[in-house]
């Protein structure tokens, strides 16, 4: 129904992204006359085909957020090129949706007002229709009039997802969107994101600390190394969906990514970095 219609609409709307060569240096003022530079990204090259799902993993401070912020258009000074369907990115735009680590809902607006906040000016009935449709999409029909402080963390993040999707972006950028959630809710949200992606076929770029999550969701897992942030490895995930987290292939892939961060002897029990 809604899903298949949106899928048709989305299929040709998904945008492909071409990154690189891209580097980014921050200049910090450390004294009245002194500045220091931090190279956050060094020579990143990454092509993301339209409609695909890319997971990015990397240790803290390796520049994942910086990369997403550049794609989102929030960070406009960088060296190199980032193009969306061939057009260079020069600032934020509705063709890219962002889901931040914290939900960033406006506490004084209700759930439906928060979702409509991102919507460009439309006739009132159309706004109501789209808000309702997206509330359904994230399974929060009953909470249209609730305020953010009345929601659980997972529910708030689902509202944030609805808000990011309501303008039908062609790329969805997710910066550790479930990092603050408990393990059970996180798994539930991963399934939800997958369902939405399968329905809408938006291009997805997901930054995460959770290797399990990266493998479960991505068509490809990109491993980044730090200082400066570069791409160390790209691993295609050839497994059919829905993926079984306990299948030998899944576990093997998880181990392989893990070895990028830890030597064999220090492999911890839980695969999280």
């Amino acid at each position, binding site marked *: 129904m809604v899903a298949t219609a949106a899928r048709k609409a989305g299929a040709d709307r998904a945008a492909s992204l071409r990154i690189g060569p891209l580097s980014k240096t921050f200049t910090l003022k450390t004294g009245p006359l002194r500045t220091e530079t931090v190279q956050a990204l060094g020579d990143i090259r990454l092509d993301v085909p339209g409609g695909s799902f890319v997971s990015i993993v990397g240790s803290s401070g390796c520049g994942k957020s910086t990369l997403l912020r550049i794609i*989102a*258009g*929030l960070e406009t000074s960088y060296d190199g090129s980032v193009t969306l369907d061939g057009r260079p990115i020069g600032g*934020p*735009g*509705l063709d*890219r*949706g*962002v889901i*931040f680590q*914290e939900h*960033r809902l*406006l*506490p*004084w*607006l209700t759930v439906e*007002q928060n979702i409509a*906040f*991102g919507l*460009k*000016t439309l006739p009132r009935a159309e706004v109501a229709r789209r808000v309702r449709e997206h509330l359904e999409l994230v399974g929060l029909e009953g909470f249209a009039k609730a*305020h*953010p*402080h009345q929601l659980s963390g997972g529910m708030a993040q689902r509202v944030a997802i609805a*808000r990011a999707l309501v*303008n039908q972006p062609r790329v969805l950028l997710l910066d550790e969107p479930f990092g603050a959630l408990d393990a059970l809710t996180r798994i539930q949200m991963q399934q939800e994101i997958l369902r939405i992606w399968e329905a809408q076929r938006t291009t997805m770029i997901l930054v995460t600390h959770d290797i399990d999550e990266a493998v479960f969701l991505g068509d490809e897992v990109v491993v980044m190394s730090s200082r400066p942030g570069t791409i160390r490895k790209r691993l295609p995930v050839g497994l059919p969906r829905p993926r079984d987290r306990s299948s030998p292939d899944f576990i093997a892939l998880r181990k392989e990514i893990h070895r990028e961060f830890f030597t064999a002897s220090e492999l911890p029990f839980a695969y999280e970095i």
Partner: protein
Amino acid sequence: MSAELASDARSAQRAGLRAGAKTGALRSRLGALAGVLPGVLGRAALYVALPVALLAAWQAAFALGYIRPILLPPPTRVGKAFVDLAASGDLFRHLGVSLLRVLEGFAIAALVGLPLGIGIGLSRTLDRLTDLIIQLTKPIPPIAWIPLAILWFGIGEAGKVYIIFLGAIFPILVNTIDGIRQTDHRHVELARVLEVTRRRFILQVVLPGALPNIMTGLRVGLMVAWICVVAAELIAASSGLGYLIMDARQMSQTDQVLVGMITIGAMGKLLDVVLRAAERRLITWKTTFSGS
């Protein structure tokens, strides 16, 4: 104190039980009331305990002959003066005059201060243009303006309203600017990502976020306005609570001086209660620490 609370609780419960025994239908209702009542009574008792104790000590000091009534008349005498002034209508006439002046001065201060503060908060140019003037005039106590106000406006209403306006506008202005400047940068980023219009950004992000500060500014402004009206009336007026106090002092009626002072305090409290209630209705989304 705790013994008092406990006995409150017990008597309330007894009352509830006795009444409940009469009619079966009322029983559960009254039972519930008896459960709530001790808490309410206890809190009310805690709220007034200190003032009541102070009044008792004051009265006792008089009864024991420690203080001369001309310097500090006892509560009973102040109470009598209050009843007399209220009965003659003088008290309410003066109160009404003062209140009207405050509301005029405060309303003008809000009408000027809110738009100006919002403008300055949003525009760096306007901020630069006005900052020095604001910083230089802010520390001048409104009372220091009284001589000029008398020169400019005479001792009519306008001069007093002007003093009140000066007292109230700075808290309103400064808090409004502060509130707008404290807009969460994460919300600013969100608005950029979603490309919301400037109008929507101001109406749905900046102003609601600044509202708690704006309400604080209004509350402080109203309090300062109330302080200013009395100060202005003490110096140049023929009506109002400040005049009532000054007039009573000249007649050595200390009890009436105290009635005037207590009325000022009570009215100030009442105004604050009204604005706080307005604040609670406006800002329902905020969950903050309210003491433990």
